[in-house]
């Protein structure tokens, strides 16, 4: 049974890894009370999705999709790479906006812990 599953498992294990990391990131976003931790979780979540994409385009034995003189070389699918480049831009922008917000929240409230923020808001 296990022997039958193994090849498939190894062929696709990077997908499973991506899912595991995604879940770790999602967990941090939901369960962690520290705002910086939430953003770290967001980063992990996003990179895991990128990993997922890159894995999908990976062909065993392919070369990087850079122009070479050899027309016979097998390229890996370059489109996901272009997409991920864009997605990385988006991710870093999100992180930057998030961090800027965290800084201003800290200036306004003096804390970046979610529970303390809720307590302070309830008091007002």
């Amino acid at each position: 049974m296990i022997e039958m599953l193994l090849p498939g498992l190894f062929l696709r294990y990077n997908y499973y890894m991506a899912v595991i990391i995604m879940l770790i990131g999602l967990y941090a976003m939901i369960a962690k009370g520290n705002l910086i931790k939430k953003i770290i979780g967001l980063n992990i979540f996003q990179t895991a999705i990128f990993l997922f994409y890159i894995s999908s385009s990976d062909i065993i034995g392919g070369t990087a999709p850079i122009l070479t003189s050899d027309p016979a070389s097998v390229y890996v699918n370059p489109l996901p790479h272009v997409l991920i480049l864009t997605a990385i831009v988006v991710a870093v922008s999100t992180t930057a906006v998030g961090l800027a917000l965290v800084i201003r929240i800290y200036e306004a409230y003096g804390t970046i812990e979610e529970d303390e923020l809720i307590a302070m808001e309830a008091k007002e």
Partner: protein
Amino acid sequence: MIADHLPVLVVVLPLVGAFVTLLAGWADRRLCFPIAMATTVIQFCISLLILSQVMQTGPLHYNLGNWLPPWGIEYVIDQLNGFVLVVILFLCVLTCLYSHRSTPSEIDEKKIPAFYTVLLLLVTGVCGIAVTGDLFNLYVFLEISSLAAYALVALGREKRSLVSSFTYLVMGSVSACFILLGIGHLYIVTGTLNMADLARVLPPLYGSTVIQTAFIFFIIGLSIKTALFPLHLWLPDAYRYSPSAVTVLLSTVVSKIGVYALIRILFTVFTPAFIIFEIPVMEVFCWMAAAAIIGGSVLAISQTDLKRMLAYSSVSQMGYILLGIGIADSLAVTGGILHILNHAVMKGCLFMIAGSFIYSSGIRSIEDLRGIARTMPLTAAAFVIAAASMIGIPPTVGFMSKWFIALGALESGQWIFVLVILASSLLTAVYFWKVIEYMYFREPGTVCAGTVSTARDPPAGMLVPTLVLAAACILFGIFVSIPLEVIEPFVTGILGGT
């Protein structure tokens, strides 16, 4: 010559406008508003041209960089996005006008250039979502508009706006991640990102679990974006604490574009054949929408803050749109799409009014509005019209979309949703009537008597957009055939004859 390039101009123009605004703000802050205003007005004209072209010649296709699809990015405009584009740009123009007078009291003077820049970036994002025919491009524009929206929410002077913006950011990013995952799944299976291409390639693959997973990811992601009932938690705070003009934008433009994306993905990418017959997701979807309608209304009744009440009412009204889509009957879908226009008009008007109250009197709480109709008669009258429309009293726009959705529900034999729609009209009446009673039939309270008696209708810059929207509430209710002319070809196209 230019006429062929309108689809791309409508996206590039605000992007250029945003940076011109930024530069102009550097020279003189007063230049920002005219530039932003001019940009949105031109865009609105462009969108009208596009719509008329679409109505005459059928869907427009535009290939960026002359690359043919599916390799290049394609912009496709059919009746649906033509319609949505016109609606959101109409609201953008009015909001921009409104913001000229409303923002200086709510945003630091120094941040005005930033405000208009980000506003135009937001417009870029939503227009991009509206015109693109490429899934990944849709994701990118979705993120551009979301990032702009986070920044706009955070511009509020109250410090709680920061926290609500952060919550919005986290929720929005999670939803974007889900959408990205959904796109990834589709791409892995089909190798294409072009929507029309996907619709062609997908049918044989409908049984595949990967496709179904992708679909679920899309549904979750877009449900968060559109704040479908149990996932709406970010919405009330974001609406409550952002500056008035931003609230108007969020409630009309941003939420509507989310719904548009949902419709596009449900009906163009996955086609009705999948969503109705392959997996029974629409049934679940309808129940969630029904829960949103009732839940949103009940929560709205219990609010004491006007903007927050309107925010919960938005949750409820988005339920209407999604219910119309979820029933997937041609009449109901027509009603749902019509409600995009209607809700944008009504809710835009209401949030502008809420902003006017804050501007003229600083009053946010419903109870403090006692007797304000005497000193702000025009604003209060506009409120009554928009509220009547929300309740669905004819001959306002709100009535027409409810009529269609209910008729669609009847036609597909789902009586229970007819009752939900009608019952929620009553709940809506309860919370709006509370406000109207306070405004018209009570003496000013002791606490706010002074502010109420010195309040005046806001300056023309804020009053005119409000009144235009209030008038639109009635005009579109009477001349409902105008938007229907646009919507019906689309619905017929995707669902067969009406």
